[in-house]
């Protein structure tokens, strides 16, 4: 355990706790600022997220904020997605994956810098419920 990993862990947790980054801040740090391979960084990020995520879910559940019917449906569907995604992670070259991830970061970062209403649809009586 180095001071750098302690600081990186603290800042990643802090930014996640502030509601930013969707639990991926450590992943961004490991891939862009260290020599960690993309897939390994993803695995580290998953393990890093689990303790904090678990505590957060317990708190939300105790406050009766979880809509279990909807969440359980998404677990089932998400499980299919996990199998597909993790299988792809095993077969795709690590450099290719990191470039795809980099492109995603550039798009996401740019969107955060734009004014917040830019991508929202105008209010329309005939539009669907999903925005």
């Amino acid at each position: 355990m180095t001071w750098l990993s302690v600081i990186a862990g603290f800042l990643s947790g802090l930014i996640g706790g502030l509601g930013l980054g969707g639990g991926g801040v450590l992943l961004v740090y490991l891939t862009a600022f260290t020599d960690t391979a993309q897939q390994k960084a993803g695995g580290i990020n998953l393990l890093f997220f689990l303790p904090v995520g678990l505590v957060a879910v317990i708190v939300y559940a105790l406050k009766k904020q979880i809509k279990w019917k909807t969440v359980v449906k998404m677990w089932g569907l998400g499980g299919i997605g996990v199998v597909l995604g993790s299988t792809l992670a095993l077969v795709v070259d690590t450099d290719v994956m990191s470039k795809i991830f980099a492109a995603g970061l550039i798009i996401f970062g740019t969107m955060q810098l734009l004014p917040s209403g830019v991508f929202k649809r105008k209010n329309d009586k005939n539009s669907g419920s999903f925005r």
Partner: protein
Amino acid sequence: MDGIKKFSKKRTLCFGGILTGFLNGLFGAGGGMSAVPVLKGAGLEPNSAHANSVAVIVPLSMFSATIYLLNGTVTFSDALPFIPSGVVGAAVGALLLHKIPSKWMRRIFGAFVLWAGVRLMLK
């Protein structure tokens, strides 16, 4: 019309659920980016969508992490150096939530992610 809206909601939930898991399994993160809008589309308020997205993602992350551990992509000792300080950081962040203007936080964070993306692309 109600029938069409219901079918569209179900289709969104189905596609969004699979996408959430797919991003989680592929990159080890990013599932929240699809889970939150899907849950909003399913009728949840924004704050509730965020809380429920965490409830969706934690078991999916356990599933993904198990796959990564079993095929040797990662070990517990790889992640351990980051976890204790991460838990402390998350607690501090949660306490500071709503105390810092979110517009500026979003932009500073966006600039960091953009810089990281460019750096990674050029590696």
